[in-house]
């Protein structure tokens, strides 16, 4: 029988979202999972959870679409069905009580909110070094988790899997997230201005190479998390990717997997005229 709704407010990337459920065990689960990201801030958005009988997490592709003739978003996968209305900031989720579905719903919701605000989620590890955030992106196996494992003790890990980026202060800031990858450890709930984005490749030695702007935009868009087949938001993300590349140094970091790679990051001097550079002509 459904009891009264209980709420936990989870604040990721400075965006507090109230998660409410009548199920005490599910409430405990989400409080435990997002420990470190619980907030007393007034929520900007609200999600109410209706739990279904236990089932497995789905490998299906997620489908994110707007309701016909409406602003409401429908977010579906085999293991959850969610509706979210950006006008009211409220949504409802039907899922079973597993944390992976919960993570997925939250990630998708944040990706929609961020797209409207000029930010994005990125397949990237991120960390703070000397008060500046560095992002490390790449395909699976490129070395995101390796970079975080090699990090010296004075490095603050924001995430080993999903980086959270928002515009602010004339540039961009990265925020910690609870979305963990292979490291199975949530990031620290803190933020710093982004100093550089490195696309990772492993190699016999450490070296940093400039990426032409178009290639940087292409790689950035390829690694952004975005699920909605919505042309308006895709255009918005493209504009955001171009602005990010125009603002933040983007480099290819080839690294030998030992701790010395962090010396390269530490000593990275943004000796760039933004990312403006000559590029070879191509069709």
């Amino acid at each position: 029988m459904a009891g009264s709704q209980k709420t936990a407010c989870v604040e990721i990337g400075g965006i507090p979202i109230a998660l409410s459920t009548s199920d005490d065990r599910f409430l405990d689960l989400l409080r435990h999972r997002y420990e470190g990201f619980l907030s007393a801030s007034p929520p900007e958005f609200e999600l109410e959870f209706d739990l279904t009988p236990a089932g497995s997490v789905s490998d299906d592709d997620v489908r994110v679409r707007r309701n016909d003739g409406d602003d409401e978003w429908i977010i579906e996968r085999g293991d959850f069905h969610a509706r979210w209305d950006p006008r009211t900031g409220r949504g409802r989720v039907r899922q079973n009580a597993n944390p992976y579905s919960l993570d997925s719903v939250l990630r998708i919701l944040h990706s929609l909110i961020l797209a409207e605000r000029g930010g994005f989620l990125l397949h990237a590890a991120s960390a703070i070094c000397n008060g500046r955030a560095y992002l490390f992106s790449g395909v699976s196996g490129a070395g995101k988790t390796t970079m975080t494992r090699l990090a010296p003790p004075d490095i603050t890990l924001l995430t080993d899997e999903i980086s959270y980026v928002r515009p602010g202060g004339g540039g961009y800031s990265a925020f910690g997230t609870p979305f963990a990858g292979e490291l199975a450890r949530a990031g620290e709930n803190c933020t710093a201005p982004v100093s550089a984005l490195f696309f990772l490749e492993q190699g016999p030695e450490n070296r940093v190479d400039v990426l032409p702007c178009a290639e940087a935009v292409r790689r950035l868009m390829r690694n952004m998390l975005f699920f909605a087949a919505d042309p308006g938001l895709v255009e918005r993300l493209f504009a955001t990717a171009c602005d990010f590349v125009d603002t933040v140094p983007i480099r290819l970091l080839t690294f030998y997997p030992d701790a010395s790679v962090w010396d390269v990051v530490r000593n990275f001097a943004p000796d760039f005229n933004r990312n403006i550079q000559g590029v070879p002509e191509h069709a």
Partner: protein
Amino acid sequence: MPERCTYIARSTAIAARALAGEMMVMNSTDSTFFTLNEVATAIFQAADGRTPLRDIVRDRICEQFDVDIEQAQTDAEQFVAELSGHGILLVSSQPLSSDSTRETP
């Protein structure tokens, strides 16, 4: 027999942005992404739906890039065919309405 004109216009379903001297174009319906070289950029920017392609080649490409007109026309037609195949350019034998391509700020 009068020569048949080709008119080209930018699709409304694309976003374009020039960065560091490169024109990047994205089809927002399928997220395909293209970068254009200087010649392609000149054609793309001149694709107003009203100027025949042969005039664009003569007045923009040959003037600006010092190329042979026949070769330039052949290359331009190939480029237009490629981009229209990806939904970036609209092609017609009649003038098209002015484009509403959004060049991102």
